[in-house]
């Protein structure tokens, strides 16, 4: 059994918690449906967004150069990082130059992917994640389980206990209002003391050299405008050609993510404050390689809204941690194999290929088709478990042959009818653990038809 299947089975063992998790995410999916139903041109917007991203990918080098030169003109320091290590090194060197000991961060899946926190903490920098969900999991020393709602897997009782231990809230307190207020007071102190702030980037505008960051809490801005040094870390694929394209993407993003018509704060950063310094770090870390994979490059269109997770019936019932990748869920299962195919060869199989993800995706990534394609690549590269590989080879020989097919069909039906239960339902029968096998009829359709013709 692959790793996802094992972890999923563990997750499901607590069925009422699984139901709770499933309902919490389905609720978000429902809010998304409601919000997008208010926009008659929704499907047109998705198509436009997809086309804009197609254009971006086909001109990415020019757009990045344009972006860089505009940003430099704006007085921004632009850095380029080929991989996670380079990214971390660049960020640390900026912090070192300013002797930064206290850093605040707002949500960034990229820095998560690069394991920036660990890197900086090892070097003596205090790193505080300031998005409430991120702060919760940081205090709990866990990775996020969702890209938009990092702590969606935790119950308020667990957050209450954690805050009691770490932030000295009242014992047994579980009221989200009370706990959020405690976090607010705690984080305000961190904002005021921070010497630098890091944010992720939702969109970068080639035409103007600015970056756009969307939050609901205002934590990115609290960090950026209080600390003297601001650093924005972005993957190369975040580029949009012009500011007018933000119209499409801001309409799609929050509605898809949480069902809000727009995030509370949509901040556009173009120049540092008069007394501040602004840096942008542009990161590759495997993205150019993915760009070269024709069948999979579309995954780079992703705007990290999380809708594919919320709609995924498997994600909802197995939790983000079951995927073992920075980005979980459907999109994670097509991005991560590009980073390490062998290690993540189980992920493209953690799907029924139901296709809900592709239809919910605001940039129309054909996620389930890419899952199907990754499966083929995994077999070609020899990462399919040998037993499965063999049985498929075998099926490949039986199924095109009418006589073999008829023979085995009969054999199976006969076996199910005749064999005693313990023989059929054993530990090798994954189907039969919680399901009955079909009851074979006396006559197959083929036999019935032959008789009828005769």
């Amino acid at each position, binding site marked *: 059994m692959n790793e996802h*299947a094992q972890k*999923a*089975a563990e997750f*499901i063992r607590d*069925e009422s918690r*699984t139901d709770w998790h499933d309902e919490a995410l389905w609720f978000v999916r429902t809010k998304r449906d409601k919000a997008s139903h208010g926009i*008659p041109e*929704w*499907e047109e917007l998705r198509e436009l967004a997809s086309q804009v991203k197609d254009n971006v990918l086909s001109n990415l080098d020019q757009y990045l150069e344009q972006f860089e030169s505009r940003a430099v003109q704006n007085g921004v320091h632009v850095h380029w990082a080929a991989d996670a290590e380079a990214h971390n090194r660049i960020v640390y060197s900026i912090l070192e130059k300013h002797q930064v000991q206290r850093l605040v961060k707002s949500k960034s899946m990229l820095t998560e992917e690069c394991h920036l926190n660990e890197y900086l903490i090892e070097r003596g920098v205090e790193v505080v994640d300031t998005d409430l969900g991120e702060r919760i999991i940081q205090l709990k020393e866990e990775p996020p389980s969702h890209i938009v709602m990092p702590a969606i897997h935790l119950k308020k009782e667990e957050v209450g206990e954690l805050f009691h231990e770490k932030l000295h809230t009242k014992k047994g307190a579980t009221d989200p209002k009370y706990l959020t207020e405690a976090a607010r007071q705690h984080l305000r102190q961190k904002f005021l003391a921070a010497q630098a702030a890091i944010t992720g980037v939702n969109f970068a505008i080639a035409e103007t050299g600015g970056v756009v960051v969307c939050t609901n809490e205002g934590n990115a801005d609290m960090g950026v405008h209080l600390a003297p040094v601001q650093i924005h870390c972005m993957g190369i694929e975040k580029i949009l050609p012009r500011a007018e394209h933000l119209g499409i993407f801001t309409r799609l993003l929050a509605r898809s993510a949480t069902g809000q018509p727009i995030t509370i704060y949509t901040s556009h950063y173009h120049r540092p404050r008069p007394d501040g310094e602004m840096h942008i770090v542009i990161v590759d870390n495997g993205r150019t390689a993915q760009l070269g994979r024709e069948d999979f490059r579309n995954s780079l269109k992703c705007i990290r809204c999380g809708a594919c997770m919320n709609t995924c*019936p*498997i994600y909802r*019932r*197995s939790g983000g941690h079951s995927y073992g990748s920075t980005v979980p869920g459907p999109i994670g299962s097509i991005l991560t194999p590009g980073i390490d195919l062998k290690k993540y060869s189980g992920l493209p*199989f953690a*799907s*029924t*290929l*139901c*296709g*809900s993800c*592709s*239809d*919910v995706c605001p940039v129309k990534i054909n996620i389930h088709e890419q899952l*199907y394609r990754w*499966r*083929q*690549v995994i*077999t070609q590269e020899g990462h*399919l478990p040998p037993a*499965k590989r063999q049985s*498929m080879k075998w*099926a*490949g*020989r039986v*199924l*095109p*042959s*009418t006589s073999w*097919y008829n023979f085995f*069909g009969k054999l*199976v*039906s006969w076996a199910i009818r005749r064999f005693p239960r313990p023989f059929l339902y054993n530990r090798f029968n*994954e*189907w039969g*653990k*919680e*399901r*009955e*096998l*079909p*009851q*074979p*009829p006396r*006559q197959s*359709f*083929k*036999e*019935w*038809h*032959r008789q009828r013709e005769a």
Partner: protein
Amino acid sequence: MPVKIGLFIPCYIDQFYPQVGIATLELLEKLGCRVEYPAGQTCCGQPMANTGCEQDATTTYQHFVQLFHAFDYVVAPSGSCVYHVRKHYDIIEQTEEVKRVRKNTLDLAEFLLDVLQVKRLEARFPHKVGLHQSCHGLRGLRLGSGSERILEPSSKLNTLLRMVAGIELVELTRADECCGFGGTFAINEPAISVKMGKDRIADHERQGVEVLTAGDMSCLMHLEGIIRRQRKTIQVKHIAEILNGASL
């Protein structure tokens, strides 16, 4: 009618659910179609391909094309197999025969509504019925709008069921969530697969459904397996059976 129709009965229907094949054939004949059933048929090749072994499936694809290319239409009571033929037979050489088969292979519901333009059916089924929207038919063949896309709601299966006298169709809390079958997924990830199935069944039960129907027997095989293990009273029937005038 001058057209020649080839009937494809998927392997698991042939072996385990012949009544679905029979209903499909009878229904088409009742509607005046001349239907042939090429006896050499086996499988569409999807089990291998979905496991990542589409290269092992190509001979099966060729076999399918060879058997069916001479027909004007190939009709199958399975959105999933039809989707596979149409979508994934792209890896073999695109001869005229292959192109023809890919274009003319239709799910039963598509054939009834789009080709035959059926407006009325002689069927009565006075029961509370829940429709499971099998994913490959819904999102692959676009047999309906689906709950994700912001379109005028539509569903071919629903349209057909509404032609059946006495039927009471229920509204589900989750209109088109996957049942968890997913081919080899059912065996690779049995825990989630079964949990998804249980949740689907529960949704139908909450609406008081007597009979759960779908366009794909594979979904129903999985759901029925759970229903029988849990000794529930809800029954499953392929949509072809209901449209052909089955009774309980």
